[in-house]
């Protein structure tokens, strides 16, 4: 399957008091199965709308979102989501938080099996020993790790992330990039990441899609030609440097400020 996620000519407008506000206007994105697609663009260009369209929480006015050959019309159990806010449920332990999607997706799964699955993921992201803690007892980065586990616990085909590392400090963020890389190496899944961070998009992405300013259309697609098993150091090598320059220029164009910043 070459186009696992296929977003074709999507247009969408929000109805407001002052008439329709177009947010997406001619969006085309193709994501092959098992690859990582990073989406960058200026603030308020409709990136979050994109996550809601792929997950089926919203339908586009025109155009189509096709997932594994089927048009997305409503939410489906094969999707995992992670947000900037890790939204941990304070009345559940970390382990119970991670198990939450299984209660919806696989309500008949034996509890022991669900617990083992959740504990395994927590172990993978370095949270072994924190299973019984309350979310408020963990740091922001740890909560975000647990939130990634929750998004993956039901083995989704697609993981959709809306700036999941946006509120973290730089070092924690780099740690989480590597955690993300390791998770994908262990259990491959297709990934769409919305981000503001160009370094993040190059480190994690197989392709980086640059959206124009609102209403957003696909402005540029960069194929990230780097080995799958990347280390943070790779960002300081000339090849990654060139890509970052290129992306930076594209963002400037998207912001409508060509040349002004040079």
């Amino acid at each position, binding site marked *: 399957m070459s186009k696992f996620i296929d977003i074709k000519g999507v247009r969408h407008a929000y109805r407001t008091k002052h008439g329709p506000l177009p947010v997406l206007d001619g969006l085309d994105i193709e994501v092959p199965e098992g690859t990582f697609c990073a989406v960058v663009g200026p603030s308020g260009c409709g990136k979050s709308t994109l996550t809601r369209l792929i997950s089926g*929480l919203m339908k586009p006015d025109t155009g189509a979102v096709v997932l594994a050959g089927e048009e997305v019309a409503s939410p489906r159990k094969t*999707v995992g*989501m992670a947000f900037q806010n890790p939204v941990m*449920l*304070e*009345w559940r332990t970390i382990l119970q938080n991670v198990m*939450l999607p299984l209660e919806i997706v696989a309500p008949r799964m034996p509890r022991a099996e669900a617990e083992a699955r959740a504990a395994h993921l927590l172990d993978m992201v370095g949270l072994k020993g924190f299973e019984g803690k309350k979310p408020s007892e963990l740091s922001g980065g740890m909560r975000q790790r647990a939130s990634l586990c929750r998004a993956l616990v039901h083995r989704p085909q697609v993981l959709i992330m809306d700036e999941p590392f946006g509120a973290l400090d730089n070092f924690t963020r780099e740690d989480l990039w590597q955690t993300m890389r390791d998770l994908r190496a262990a259990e491959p899944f297709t990934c769409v990441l919305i981000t503001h961070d160009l370094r993040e998009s190059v480190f994690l992405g197989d392709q980086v899609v640059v959206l124009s300013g609102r209403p957003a259309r696909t402005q540029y697609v960069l194929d990230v030609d780097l080995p799958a098993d990347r280390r943070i150091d790779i960002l300081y090598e000339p090849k990654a440097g060139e890509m970052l320059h290129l992306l930076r220029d594209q963002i400037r164009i998207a912001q409508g400020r060509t040349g002004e910043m040079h």
Partner: protein
Amino acid sequence: MELAQKILVPLLAMLIFLGLWEGVVWINDWPDYKMASPSDLPPAFVKYHALFLSGGWETLWRTVAGLVLAVIFGTGLGMVMGFSRIARAGLYPLLVGFNAIPKATLVPVIALVFIGQYDFNTVLMAFLISFFPIAVSVGIGLSTLEPEYRDILAALGASKFTIFRKIALPKTLPEFFGALKVSVTLAFIGTNLVEIVSPHGKGLGALFLSGQTNSDYPLMFAVLIALAALGIVLYYAVVALERIFAGWAERSPG
């Protein structure tokens, strides 16, 4: 040490309060028709203990019955207002207006409508006076649920009911119990309001009135103290329920 702090400190505070009260009455040499002193109370309790028990029970069960109704109705109303913007816009002014009516003025109205049905009237008043905080807090709790909380389950195709049961309901519990602490006291006031404004020989309110008619001032003060004690018991019963069902909301110290 912790136990001492939880039990001995409040006990000591109460003893100091009673001591001060006794002292003020003693220094001013007030007769008991002006102000009874704590030492006048035990004889009153002993003399009328059977009436205190039966009256206390009547006040207690009618308060709790009214409160249970308030919880059911208030939660239902809160859910309607929390989920529907139209219902919220329509119901809010009505609710605020109703809540602004001094409930003492409703006692004679209710007594006329349901003439002679004293237990029913009393429970009704306890209910009417206490459902408002519950409805408002549940409504606000549900309507301010952050969309991300909904989306973690909505994105998996979970039903509205499942989202309510697994996320919205538990998340609203701390607010609900906050409101219940206010409501329990209000319900108690509602019961006594009917017992005193619409006398029918039942509850601690009736005992208070009989103290008044017989000029038995120590009895009147003893009833006040009994009411306070009952109020404390009800309040801490709610606190115990809160510990069980929403204990997670309490942050561990430090």
